[in-house]
């Protein structure tokens, strides 16, 4: 009997110890990528061409040149076709490429492009692009590619954007629990809100 009890205690203890460590190791800021599905878009937009590094043949356009609302609104927004046309009407060299032709078709028909959502959050979640951009891009002065990349992954290397991070609650919370510098030239740190109501609506 004694023997039985002893081994039971030991087993239970082992279970808790092991599970505690196993769980501890899980979510961190640099999670292994959790790649989302490949999504077919109406136009196969080459992100790498626009935002990619120069060495890869990209033009290093700031993400927020097109996704211009990210710094002043909850949503980053898809640029209106107007924006694409604004540049492309004067870029004759690629005018006859099928993707560009498609773009002009939409423009001529005055029809918005039905882009599919790549990073879709459930409707009860409120994610604010503005706050994150303000915090990391403007206050901490981090490079925009890094800041956007926290959640969107390495978009500058993609053609059609694909989800690279899990974007689950635990994943969000793992970063919110970390201390981050308040601004570039301050040693003060703070972490993201852990108030349920801030992100849940």
């Amino acid at each position, binding site marked *: 009997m004694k023997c039985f009890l002893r081994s039971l205690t030991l087993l239970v203890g082992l279970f*808790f110890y092991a*599970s*505690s*460590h196993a*769980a*501890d190791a*899980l*979510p961190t800021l640099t999670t292994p990528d959790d790649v989302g599905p490949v999504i077919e878009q109406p136009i196969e937009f080459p992100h790498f061409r626009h935002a990619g590094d120069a060495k890869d043949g990209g033009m290093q356009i700031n993400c927020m040149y097109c996704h211009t609302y990210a710094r*002043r609104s909850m949503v980053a927004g898809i640029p209106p076709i107007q924006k694409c046309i604004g540049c492309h009407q004067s870029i004759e060299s690629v005018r006859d490429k099928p993707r560009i032709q498609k773009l002009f078709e939409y423009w001529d028909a005055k029809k918005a492009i039905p882009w599919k959502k790549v990073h879709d959050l*459930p*409707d*009860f979640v*409120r994610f*604010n692009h*503005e*706050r994150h951009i*303000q915090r990391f891009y403007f206050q901490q002065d981090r490079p925009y590619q890094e800041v956007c990349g926290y959640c969107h992954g390495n978009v500058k290397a993609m053609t059609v954007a694909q989800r690279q991070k899990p974007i689950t609650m*635990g994943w969000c919370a793992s970063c919110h629990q970390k201390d981050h510098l308040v601004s570039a030239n301050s040693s003060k740190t703070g972490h993201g*809100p*852990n*108030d*349920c*109501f*801030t992100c*849940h*609506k």
Partner: protein
Amino acid sequence: MSVSNLLENWSEFRHTHPVDDKGYPDWEAYPSDIKWAMAIDLDACTGCNACSVACYAENNLPVVGKEKYSHGQAMHWMRIERYWDENDSGFQADQGARFLPMMCQQCEAAPCETVCPVGATNHTEDGLNSQIYNRCIGSRYCSANCPYKVRYFNWYNYPEQENAWPAPLNQQLNPDLTVRTKGVMEKCTFCKQRTYTARNNAKTEGRPVQDSDVQTACQEACPTGAITFGNLHNPESQVAKQWQSQQVDLIKDVQEKDEKEGNRLRGYRILEELRPYPSVMYLERVRESAV
């Protein structure tokens, strides 16, 4: 997430109340510089229901229809109560009726918060009593324990099965907050989506939130301006001035002025003696006796 994190985490997700077990208020422990609060002047309130309709419009409240209304399943986060004066022979109407707009009082020590088995309702740092719809499993314990009975349960699947917003009425739905489905509790949030936006904008501009930043939907609609809403921590805010001038203290369960003889102030909080420390102050309705 380890088991060793359990307790630490748990204490974090329940914010400290300024009124805790110490028996005296601890404002130092208050986690932010915002405490949303309200004041409602019952002398100005005419009971016209504009606030309630505005709430329907702002907060995606379903219209339940006659049959369900008859079962008491209406979803009005803000309800207008009508009371009569009474004497021995029954209701008296010669001084009119008394109206009371009643919504979640956003208690500082809310009875609903402690009892939720999953922590779907808890206190936010800006002093709201939050309701996380997706966390709710529908035990309804919060409502059972609410002294004001201002929590509303989704008895049915209003958006889908009950078709509460037949197209194109659904286009009116506010995208700033979700449409609740069956089986979750909901209640007034002091227009969380609006306070959120106000705080967000103020933060971007690097300044504190001011009165002009935010109005709740009911306050905005109120034809007589009976509702005041704002940050109680900001002494410049209208609501703080009102609370102050009425000598109503958020963290007391008995106001000093009520103990004094000859109190000529009319601010009070409902069911204050139960010590939930509600965030809504009402101002007594005044009636002239000379006529």
